[in-house]
Every structure is written in structure tokens, then in C-alpha cells.
């Protein structure tokens, strides 16, 4: 084949352009840390990347949702703790007051304390966190308990559970159903005990020890239920942590550049480029003109 100067310079230019475009590709990879910069570089990686990013965004959102669950659960737990210590104090009072040696005036004093404890229990049942009533289900704008002027207590019923999305298809109940704690005979038992104190009725006071124990049992049951859910929450949190790591890992394996490889590629390409330049400069320079007299 007949080769001319023009062909040699054309070919050299084409090869140099190709070499530059490869250099550019590896530089891009090293600078951005990404294997690809456009979907068409590798459609498969690009589409998988879109999926992984959605997954990661979801996991991160779940993690941030768990803080909300913690807020609900910790507040509910400390509230229930307050309820049970109030009830225990009241039961102690019942045991003291059921003592036959207690005089009427002494029982009056006990009565005052019992009333205070009742008021305290009501305030716990109507506790607000972040301006939300925590025991009234999803109806967070309204208090669980209303007390009329005569001290008659009404407990709302039919609360909807507050559910929070913490994992794919898992919506964990974050609240404690107020009706299950404070509903039923809860205030009837307390009011019965207070009335017995007021009436100075030793037999009824003695009965109060048992009925208050029933209240304590209810609270303990609810706390146990809450505790079980808190444990589940911890498990989910651990899982979310490892899910996040996995998602990030898979994502980086999919689209992040392998630096050792990219640097080696770049160096190889650079060597080839230098060789091409050196060869080109030698071939292009001389022609017969240089050697004729």
C-alpha cells in the first residue's frame, strides 16, 4: 500500500484524539470518583444506580423516622412509670389507712394526699409532648381525660394507634393506647378508694388495696407491651443500620470507581500517549527534502 505524509499525519491525529479521549475518561473517573458520568456510558449501571439511590433515601428516611418512634415510646414509658409510682403510693396509703388504729382526722390527711395523686394521674394521662397529647391516639389535639367540676372523670375511647413507617411494610405502633390504661375501672377504683377515705369506711379502704392492685397490674401490662415494642424497635434499628451500610456498599460497588484500577489505567494510557507522541514527532519530521542537496 502506498503511504503518504498526509496519511501518516491523519492517522497520527486520529490516534492521538483517541488517546486523549481515553485519558479524559480516566481523569473524569478519578476526579468524580464515578465509573460513569452519563447514563449511556453504561445504561445497566445507571438504572441500577437510580434504584439504589431510591432505596438508600428510603432507608435514611426510616432511620430518621425511628427517632420519632423513640420520642413517643420514651415519653409514654416515663409517663407510665409516673402512673405506676402514683398508684403504688396510693396503695401504700390504702394499707396505712386500713389500719384500725387510724383516726378519722388522720384518714382525712391521707384523703388529701390521695386526691393530689389522682390529680397527678389525670395530668399524666393528659401529658403533652411537643404540643401533642400522647395518650389520645391520633387525635393529638384533644386531651384524653376531661374532669367536670364535681371531679367526675370521662375517658375518651376508640383511639386510633399512631403508626410510624420504620421499614418496608412495617408500621410500628409508637403510642400507648390511653383508654387501655386509664379506661375501664381505673378511675372508678381510685374514686371508690377516695370515697371510702372520706366516708372513713375501713372495710372499703381495705378493699381499695386490691382494686388499686388491679390498676397497677393494668399499667404493668401496658408497660410490658410497650417494652416489647421498644425491643422490636431496637432490632429494627440495628437492621436499618446494617441495611444502610449494605445499600451504600452496593451503590459504591455499582458506580464508584476502583481507584487502583483507574490510576493504573491512567498511567498505562499516559505511557501509551507519550509513546504515540514521540513516535509521531519522529516520523512526521523528515522527508526526502531534508536529504537532497
Amino acid at each position, binding site marked *: 500500500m502506498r503511504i503518504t*505524509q498526509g496519511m501518516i499525519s491523519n492517522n497520527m491525529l486520529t490516534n492521538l484524539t483517541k488517546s486523549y479521549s481515553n485519558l479524559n475518561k480516566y481523569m473524569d473517573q478519578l476526579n468524580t470518583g464515578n465509573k460513569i458520568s452519563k447514563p*449511556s*456510558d453504561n445504561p445497566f449501571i445507571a438504572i441500577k444506580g*437510580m434504584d439504589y439511590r*431510591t432505596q438508600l433515601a428510603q432507608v435514611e428516611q426510616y432511620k430518621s423516622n425511628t427517632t420519632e418512634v423513640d420520642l413517643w415510646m420514651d415519653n409514654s414509658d416515663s409517663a407510665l412509670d409516673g402512673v405506676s409510682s402514683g398508684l403504688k403510693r396510693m396503695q401504700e396509703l390504702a394499707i396505712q389507712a386500713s389500719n384500725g388504729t387510724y383516726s378519722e382526722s388522720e384518714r382525712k390527711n391521707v384523703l388529701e394526699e390521695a386526691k393530689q395523686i389522682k390529680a397527678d394521674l389525670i395530668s399524666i394521662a393528659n401529658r403533652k409532648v411537643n404540643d*401533642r397529647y400522647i395518650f389520645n391516639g*391520633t387525635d393529638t389535639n384533644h386531651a384524653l381525660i376531661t374532669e367536670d367540676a364535681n371531679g367526675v372523670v370521662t375517658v375518651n375511647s376508640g383511639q386510633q394507634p399512631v403508626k*410510624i413507617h420504620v421499614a418496608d411494610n412495617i408500621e410500628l405502633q409508637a403510642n400507648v393506647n390511653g383508654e387501655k390504661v386509664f379506661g375501664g375501672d381505673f378511675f372508678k377504683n381510685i374514686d371508690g378508694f377516695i370515697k371510702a377515705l372520706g366516708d372513713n369506711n375501713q372495710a372499703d379502704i381495705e378493699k381499695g388495696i386490691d382494686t388499686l392492685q388491679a390498676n397497677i397490674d393494668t399499667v404493668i401490662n401496658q408497660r410490658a407491651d410497650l417494652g416489647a415494642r421498644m425491643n422490636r424497635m431496637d432490632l429494627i434499628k440495628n437492621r436499618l443500620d446494617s441495611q444502610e451500610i449494605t445499600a451504600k456498599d452496593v451503590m459504591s460497588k455499582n458506580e464508584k470507581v476502583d481507584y487502583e484500577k483507574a490510576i493504573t489505567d491512567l498511567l498505562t494510557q499516559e505511557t501509551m500517549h507519550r509513546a504515540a507522541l514521540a513516535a509521531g514527532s519522529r516520523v512526521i519530521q523528515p*522527508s*526526502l527534502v531534508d536529504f537532497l542537496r
Partner: protein
Amino acid sequence: MSTFHGLEMAKQALFTQQMGLYTTGHNLSNVNTEGFSRQRVNFEAMSPFPSASRNRPSIPGQLGTGVMAGTVQRIRDAFLDSQYRTQNSKTAYWDTRATSLNRMENLLNEIDETGLSKTMNDFMTALDALSTRPDNTGGREVAIQKGSIVAESFNHIANSLEQIQLDLKKQIGSLNAETGEYDGKIGDVNSLLRQINDLNKQIGEVEPLGYLPNDLYDRRDKLIDELSGIVNIKVDYETSGKGSLAIADGIAKITLADVKGNPITDSGGAPIALLKATDRSLADPEKELGKLTVSYNDVGAVTSIEFVKQGESSQKIEDMMAVDGSLKALIKSNGYVVGENGVDKVVGDFPETLSKLNKLAQNFALAFNKIHKEAKDANGENGMAFFTNGSKYDPANPNALETNITAFNISINQELSEHPDKLAISADGSAGDGQKALELAKMFSKALTAEDIGGAAGDPEPFGKGISVTGYFQQIISKMAVDTQEANRRLVNDGVLQQKIQNDRLSVSAVSIDEEMTNLLKFQHAYNASARSMTAMDEILDKIINSMGLVGR
């Protein structure tokens, strides 16, 4: 045998070698001229003396009478030219297509953190976050804002795609020739045909005189090369007249051709001849020469390409995709009309992507709105449409907001952006209930059914069976990415092939400086030698004239 035979022969040789030197000089001057083919003087020995005739002198044998320049010919291979042109059409097709697809890809570059899928993810997580604190007014504002960013992203992508499409239409060209407005590739074809016709005319005038207009041939071939990049063509030649040499190229005739080189025909089966040999004798080629014209429908898709010539019935190209070249690439990206079962359908990269985006925007909006309208807002009332077609809310006709939502007009309900409390995220209306916000967030990745967008049960799924909003968007991206990847790859492959053919062509036609220098020496030596022979003749004649017959005086 004449006394001056030797002198005459040396003079002839001097002239001929000089011609060789001049041609070498011409080649060297044009070493960097694109499209130039090296030229050679075809040296021929002159007819010997004496010729066979009755009154021939009786000398022993025929005597050579020297050299003459037969013709000056360019060195070129017509077969390589036709190979180059077919390949050029393919390369130009992929080049142009890759360019327009890359422009689309820049818009839909979902790799970086700014794409539509990123805004969708943001919106989705904002809704999910809101479901944990439904009574948080700040969270509502955030969710509405993120929703509005999604809508704006749709608008931006759709408008930019439309802008590029308009630009593609300008590159295809035609129509507004009067106002001087865009006359793209179609105009280029017509202008090239006119220039080739001009050269045909000049060549037709020179060739019958027995000359080879090499430089006109080169110019014509270059124009034909250029034309082959726009449309695939077949070139035939016809002799220009009686006096033309056998090695003369003749008059070029150009017909549209398909990939295999077969002529493209109109509906009647007649080949579409862009340029005929007779066209060179037209009185007013500007007017009478045939032209390609393009017509569009109301949405800017190409309906037909026709070849129109004065005094002849116009010829419509049956299958626009049969003619390779950059014109085809532009038409394919811009969109064109095909009749399918008697119904006209617009196909092409940009219109298809746009219609898919519209479908995505519409069904996403409808599915979102359906859940939103079932939910209760902060005031316990049912939600209104979240995404609208941008029209103003009219209490008398609330459904008008949702008709014909497209990627161009999708926007969020004005009422909502003004009153965040109207964002409906609760199932039962209680303040702490965010179940519907969760449902909205889950809708993005849920396989949509006809009921999800307010259709009847059993109707076909909006995106096809089992495909969600995010899934459908991924489909759009992957189709585009695969198309672009193919175009880029084919561009490289076809570019290599073209380079190979171009090298073959250069191998035959290109000027080599070393070779020309060698020729220069060759001719120079021959020139010197001829001059020497003339000097010898001179000495002989001097002897005859001045010294002969003096007999030693």
C-alpha cells in the same frame, strides 16, 4: 530524415519534461488541498519515422522521434469513491444521531444529584417524614415545596426537550426560504446539487475539446462527497460528447439510493433522480433544477420529503428511513409521521420521549390526586387535586384541574401552596394521623392499576402490568441510555471503517512529498539530458554549417 530532426526531438523532450516538472510542482503545491488527487503526465513516444507509406524513404528500420505528453491525468479510483460515499452516509447518520441523543441525555442525566428521580425521591421522603409528624405545619410546607419542585422538573425537562426538537427542525430546514429563516440540510442538498450541476456544465464544455479537467473533477467529487453525508446517493456518469477522451469522467448523474445502492423510488416505482445529465443545459438552473422539499404537520413532525422539479410531477420519498445520512438522523430524532393501519402516527426519539414523559406526568398526578382527594386535610375536609394542569381552581368545576395534565403543564394546586393546611394526609381527619401521607409516599414505587388513577377495574394498567411511577421513569431513562450508547458505539465503529476507506483512497490519490521529490529529480535529469542532446545537435550543425567542405583549409 531531416537535418534538424535531432534538434526538434530535443526541443520536444525539453517541453515534455518541463510539463512533468510543472505537474510535479502543481502536485507539491496542492499537497494539503482537501480533495486533490495527484496528477501525472502520461508520456508517450511519438510515432516513429518513417510511417508505412508508398513514398517512404528507403532507410533501414524505423527511427524514434522522441517523446510527447499524451494527457495529464489525475490518479483516482472511482470504486473507492463509491465505497467512501456509502460509508460516509452511515457515519454521518450515526454522528448526527449521537449528537442529538447526547443533547437529550444531558437533560435526562440521572447520574448526578439533580435529576427528576432525585426530586421525586426528595418528595417521597418528605411525605414519609410528614407521616411521622402530621401536625407539623413546617413539614407540610416542606412536602408541598418538594412536590412543586417535582412539577417544575417535569416542566423544565419537557420544555428543554421541545426546544431541542425545534432546533432539530431548523436543522432539517426548508419551508421559510422567502424570509431567509432556517434552510438546513434540505437547503444544503439543493445548493450542492446546483454547484455540481454548474461543474457538470463546465466539464461538459471542456471534455469534448480532448482535455481532462482534473481540477474540476476534484471539485465535483468533493461536493459529491459532501452530498453523500446528507443523503445516500448513487452516482453514474455519462459521456459529455463525441470529442471526449475515453478516460474522461463525463457528466455525473445523481440518484437517491438505499443502503445497498439500489435507487430509491417514488410511489410509482420511478427512481428519484436528483441530477440528470441533461440538467446542465437548463437555461435557468436556479429555477428549473429539481429541489428537495420537506413538509411538517402541526406538531412539527416530518410528514414527507418530496423532489420537486419544474414541469414534472413531484416525487415523494416512500420510506424516509431508507435514505441513510445526516438528514435521516435529524428526521428520526425530530420525529416523523408513519401510517400504521391507516392511522398516522408520530415516531422518533424526541416525540416518543416527550409522550412518555407526558404519560408519566399525567398518571403520576392522577394517582397522587386520587389518594390525596380521599384523605382529610387539617380542617377535616376532603383534599382537592394536588397536581393540576396549571389552570385556575374553579369551585364550580373542580375536575377541570385534572384534565390533560402533561409534563409541560403539571403544577401544584395554587390553593395548596397558599394554604398548606389543605394538604390532606390524614385518613380520619385527626391531627396526629398521617396514614395517607404514608400511602402517598408508597405510591411512587407501587405498581399502578387502572383503579389507582381513577379508572374502572379491569382497564389496562397505565404503565403496563406491574410497573410503578419510578419503574416507568427508569424505563424511559434506560431506553434513552441504550439508544445513545448504541449511537455512540456505531459512530466509533463506522468512523473507523470510514477512516479505513479514506486511507485507501488517500493511498491512491494523495500527494507524497518524497515521491514528488523523486519525480522532480527524474524530470530534472531528463531535462538536463535533453538539453545536452540539443547541445550535441548544435555542435553537429555548427560543424555542418561552418566547417564542412573547407577540405582542411
